[in-house]
């Protein structure tokens, strides 16, 4: 029954846009940059992504405007192809296949003669090696004045190759000079119409080389401003490095320089538009800044920032439904999943970031939202060698007017040691919001919004500590609130303690020795009586809180356990990227798949869908309300690959349309009917019951105590029976079937995704009709009449009676 083919992992974006130097088009209107496996075209004025040039099957390693036609651009990729695009319309024009030898990691510079041909797919065969042993960094290789020579630097050597003379000159530097500076080349730039090469070095020096067309008589002058490596140079003698200051040197009067400071993060690439009016800088935080004539930042294109580690878990902002994680140092980023765009950065640390390597900075390590999105709690810490840990707990209130978070309370040193876990009480209706933080100092603390005092009304309410708890001096690890906020579970190594937040009584302890608890999670909705935990000894335990006993446990190496906030489902990621989705109340998993992706899944989150999907596949039903997003280890290892992936269901219907009701009773009926008559069994199976009927959904999902009384239902039910009396039983069933298939056709128009399999199903339904063609057909009027009577759509009760 469980099929996995229809659930697939989709890469949802967040690729690097700062991997290679961006290119500004001749008219300065567009900006092209390599982004993962595609080339993105941005508008320089509006920052919007205009086209996504897709086609490469591997990482795009370079983009270039075609010199002869400035409306076309080349892109090369690690898949061994060079593609020519019309970037204004986003059309692929040509594909050139390069022999595979080129992409092997020898880093030879080769000249490729591109044959002129009309075909779209061309294989280039003529290759000639120009330079060997060049640096893998494309910034270290550059064409000089009008393409007369090419300069390439690697290590301590600068190599200049003259195409006309077919001659290469090499210039070497000593490894380091007297003052301990490192002379290693980092980047090269050539003057556009003068014989001058500028090279950037590891120690922050810039050298200007002249007279290099004579091996012996070359000269160089040195410029020094940067304190560490010059990471990028451009033809206008712009330089940038980790200081995140764009420096413009004046050619021939090098003592004068202009600065553009505080660009946000280390500069990795600098590009200049052909007319020199626009500069753009790529930054290490996945950002491209467009600068007008070295004075004004006119636009910022920001991608998903990937810090060294995602200290804060992936979170969903309940208001904007955006993904929240730590991004730039000291910031939280709000990233729209729908539009693959960074919405905004929230400055948590609020301190000037000092761009210097080896400096310990404040980092956002934990963050949590409350259920309504009104409060955000963040923890920042800074660990200095030999000094005490600096911790700050900050609470942010959502401000309706500015539509962003405003700092409400700063608690310095909330704990004496690192904070291991933090969570808000989920209860949305309660008057007071509560935050619980656990720390390695052996305590957990509850923080509460203190009542507003009378005299300092201007200050408003602030947070203060409400309770400090401990359990036998053990270190608390995880904490979790139950769905209604009436219980708090805190794990102390192998012991789970359950507290009542109202009275701060220790209610019970649960434990599953011998190993420490790794994850802790309460069930939701109908499963809220269950508490799930995973241990280091590869156990997944489920405790029943009513009996305070272990309900079930299974041996499973779970690395991540998370609950869907909108349903009972829980997802567990195993260490080998296996994914299990289950309900705590049911022993059988709803969905399981081995190796969802390569590499370990480090973080994951359920994001609610904007519209509920109406998939009936049992295995994909758990994705109806929310989508599962996860971050893989990949991101850390190989950051240029896809970072955020999405698990997404494709709604593919079998011939049997499955309703929630069918799930409950279908199998039972199938057995029974299959037993007595194969023919009718088929017909029953083919009976497409109302799929996604709102009434049924309502009826099935509303708790029994909210439903109208049985007597009320009964009379309606009997009324519906009265009609079936006029026709034969089979007829009514058939009529129903017809009606529902009609309905399904309506549905199918909405479900675009399911359209692929629609013909198949149509055929199946058609088959069903044919099989029962003997039965007298029902007129449309009758059908309408039937529909009118069954306003509550409880026709399924008839089926219940039948079986």
């Amino acid at each position, binding site marked *: 029954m469980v099929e996995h083919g229809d659930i697939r992992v989709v890469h949802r974006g967040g690729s690097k846009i700062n991997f290679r130097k961006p290119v500004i088009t001749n008219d300065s209107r567009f900006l092209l940059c390599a982004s993962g496996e595609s080339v993105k075209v941005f508008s320089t004025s509006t920052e919007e992504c205009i086209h996504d040039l897709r086609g490469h099957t591997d990482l795009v390693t370079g983009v270039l405007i075609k010199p002869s036609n400035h409306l076309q651009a080349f892109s090369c990729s690690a898949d061994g192809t060079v593609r020519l695009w019309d970037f204004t319309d986003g059309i692929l024009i040509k594909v050139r296949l390069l022999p595979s030898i080129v992409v092997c990691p020898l880093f030879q510079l080769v000249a490729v003669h591109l044959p002129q041909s009309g075909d779209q797919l061309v294989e280039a065969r003529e290759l000639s090696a120009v330079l060997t042993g060049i640096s893998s960094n494309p910034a270290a290789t550059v064409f000089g004045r009008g393409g007369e020579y090419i300069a390439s630097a690697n290590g301590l050597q600068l190599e200049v190759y003259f195409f006309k003379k077919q001659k290469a000159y090499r210039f070497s530097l000593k490894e380091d000079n007297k003052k301990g500076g490192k002379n290693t080349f980092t980047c090269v730039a050539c003057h556009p119409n003068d014989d001058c090469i500028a090279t950037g070095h590891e120690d922050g020096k810039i050298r200007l080389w002249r007279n290099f067309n004579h091996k012996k008589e070359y000269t160089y002058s040195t410029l020094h401003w940067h304190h560490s490596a010059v990471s990028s140079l451009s033809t206008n003698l712009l330089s940038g490095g980790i200081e995140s200051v764009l420096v413009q040197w004046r050619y021939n009067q090098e003592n004068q320089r202009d600065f*553009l400071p505080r660009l946000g993060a280390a500069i990795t690439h600098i590009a200049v538009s052909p007319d020199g009016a626009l500069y753009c800088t790529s930054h290490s935080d996945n950002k491209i800044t467009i600068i007008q004539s070295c004075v004004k930042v006119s636009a910022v294109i920001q991608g998903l920032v990937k810090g060294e580690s995602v200290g804060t878990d992936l979170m969903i902002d309940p208001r904007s439904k955006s993904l929240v994680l730590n991004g730039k140092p000291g910031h939280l980023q709000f990233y729209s999943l729908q539009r693959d765009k960074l919405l905004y950065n929230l400055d948590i640390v609020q*301190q*000037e970031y*000092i761009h210097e390597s080896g*400096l310990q900075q404040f980092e956002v390590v934990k963050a949590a939202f409350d259920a309504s999105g009104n409060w955000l709690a963040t923890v920042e810490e800074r660990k200095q060698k030999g*000094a005490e840990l600096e911790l700050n707990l900050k609470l942010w209130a959502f401000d309706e007017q500015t539509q962003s978070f405003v700092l409400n309370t700063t608690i310095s040193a909330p704990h004496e040691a690192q904070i291991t876990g933090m969570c808000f009480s989920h209860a949305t209706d309660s008057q007071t919001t509560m935050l619980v933080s656990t720390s390695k100092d052996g*305590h957990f603390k509850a923080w509460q919004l203190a009542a507003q005092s009378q*005299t300092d009304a201007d200050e408003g309410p602030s947070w203060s500590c409400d309770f*400090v708890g401990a359990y036998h001096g053990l270190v608390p690890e995880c904490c979790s609130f139950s769905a209604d906020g009436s219980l708090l579970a805190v794990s102390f190594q192998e012991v789970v303690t359950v507290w009542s937040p109202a009275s701060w009584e220790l209610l019970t302890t649960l434990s599953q020795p011998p190993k420490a608890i790794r994850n802790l999670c309460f069930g939701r909705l109908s499963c809220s009586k269950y508490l799930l935990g995973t241990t280091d000894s590869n156990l997944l335990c489920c405790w029943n809180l009513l009996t305070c006993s272990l309900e079930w446990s299974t041996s499973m190496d779970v690395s991540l356990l998370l609950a869907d906030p909108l349903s009972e489902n829980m997802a567990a990621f195993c260490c080998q990227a296996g994914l299990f989705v289950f309900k705590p109340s049911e022993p059988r998993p709803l969905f399981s798949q081995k190796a969802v992706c390569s590499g370990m899944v480090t973080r994951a989150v359920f994001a609610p869908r904007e519209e509920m999907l109406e998939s009936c596949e049992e295995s994909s039903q758990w994705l109806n309300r929310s989508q599962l997003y996860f971050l893989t280890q990949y991101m850390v290892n190989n950051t240029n690959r896809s970072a955020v992936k999405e698990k997404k269901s494709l709604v593919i219907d079998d011939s049997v349309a499955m309703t929630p009701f069918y799930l409950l009773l279908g199998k039972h009926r199938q057995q029974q009917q299959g037993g007595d008559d194969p023919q009718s069994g088929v017909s029953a199976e083919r009976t497409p019951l109302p799929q996604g009927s709102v009434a049924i959904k309502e009826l099935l999902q509303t708790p029994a105590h909210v439903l109208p009384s049985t007597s009320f239902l009964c009379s309606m039910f009997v009324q519906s029976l009265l009609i079936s009396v006029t026709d034969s039983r089979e007829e009514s069933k058939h009529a129903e079937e017809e009606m529902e298939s009609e309905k399904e056709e309506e549905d199918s128009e909405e479900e675009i995704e399911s359209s692929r399999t629609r013909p198949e199903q149509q055929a199946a339904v058609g088959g069903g009709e044919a099989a029962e063609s003997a039965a007298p057909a029902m007129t449309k009027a009758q059908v309408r009449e039937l529909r009118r009577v069954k306003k509550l759509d409880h026709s399924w009760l008839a089926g219940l009676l039948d079986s």
Partner: protein
Amino acid sequence: MASFKPTKIQVYPKLGEKVTQDTLYWKNYKAPVQIKEFGAVTHIDFSPVAPHNFAVTAFTRVCWHLFVHIYGPFSQEPVKTFTRFKDTAYSGRFRSDGQLLVAGCEDSVVRLFDVGGKVALRMFRGHTKAVHVTDFTSDRYQILTGSDDYTCRLWDIPNSTELNTYQEHTDYIRCGVTSKLNRDLFITGSYDHTLKLFDARVDRSVMTMDHGQPVESLLLYPSEGLLVSAGGRYVKVWDLLKGGQPLVSLKNHHKTVTSLCLSTNGQRLLSASLDRHVKVYNTTNYKVVHNFDYAASILSLALAPDDESIVVGMTNSILSIKHRKSPEESKEISGQQRRRPSYRVFVKGKNYVPKQDDYLVSKPVKQHLAKYDKQLKKFNVSKALDTALETWTRHRKPEITVAVIKELDRRGTLNNALAGRDEQGLSQLLNFLIGNLVDPRFAPVLVTAAEMILDIYHSVIGQSPVVDRQLLRLQELLEREIDYQQDLLEVLGMLDTMFASTGLECLCNLFFETSDTFPDMTFVSHRLHPARLLV
């Protein structure tokens, strides 16, 4: 280009008591007027009619003459003095119309005065011992007296005859009140620990309450449903309507409570005690909301109508009168502050709304930075520290200096900023350290700075006597602090064993809370060992 983010100055919680509505209200009194009386002031009573004169009962030890002074509400000289007492007078009280005044006496005679006259109108003889309690009944024609002969009596004023005698108390009667609503009801409190409610229509008490201590003072709420009694260290509130059920027992003084009074709106209860404090309680939850300190043990306390003044009599025979500040006066004080530019200056031109065809020329908003931030922006670390160490900042706003030091530390340039100072600069820095190192708010930052200073300058120790002296002072300071921490830890250990023996969970929680507050003070000893300073 992002703007420069200024140095974050940490906001520390304000130390000291919190400012509440109550403290504002009760602090809004002028400096007290002090009047030297002839002896301990035993009773103060305000006249119920305007201009609310008050009668002060005091005696001199020298001649055992006893006075009842009547003061005007704002005068410092007595309006009138009654001196016709042979012995110590007690409990001078006004009648509800303010025309008559009654006072008891050590010589057991109760005297009734006309406020206008000097000679006693009536003398009630009958008690055998000193009369400490006198009061008018609500019908204004009878007088209640209570005496040390264990009796309380009712007298008729027109006939000056004794109406009734109640002999139920078994000790001195030292306080009593009459009901303002019912002419027949009165309550007496005695040193036999009991309060008795008498009804003049029957010949005995109708209700008895046990206070547990000798009763010093009694007070009836205006509604007369609640009775407050003071005796020993306790103030107790009784519900008369529930048959004298105790409602609350307050133990906020550490010596005998001598006097009680109620604020005019009935929301606050004041109690005065021999421990020199007057405490103000909220009458809804009986929490102390304010506290007055006085120079000597307080014997009597009275509050003028509308809380216009607080009058306190003390054992050192000083009468202290605090008058409420008039609204103009409280305004005057704020008006005395520096004149600021008017609001118009700031909004000048800013509230102009652009019209449709206007071309908007935007001007970048200039960011105003503090001096030290300007230096930090230029990476002038030494100069930044210098500006932060300017005298005014150092003394008035040490948190700014500390924040700059912290910022420099974060930037990894604190070493550079501290180094290369001359004798004067170094001694300035050391002075600041001496002043603030042991402050638990600043200690973590300053300890790092102190260690760095020692590392940098240990080679020049011995060259400058000024610096050497300061280093020695710093060492002394730290040694003292360490001793102090040691003591605190000992206390903590004692508490620990105490809580362990009680074994109650709530106490354990309390312990955790206290242990949370202690580490703030203990880390100095953990971090900075004196050995480091000896280099």
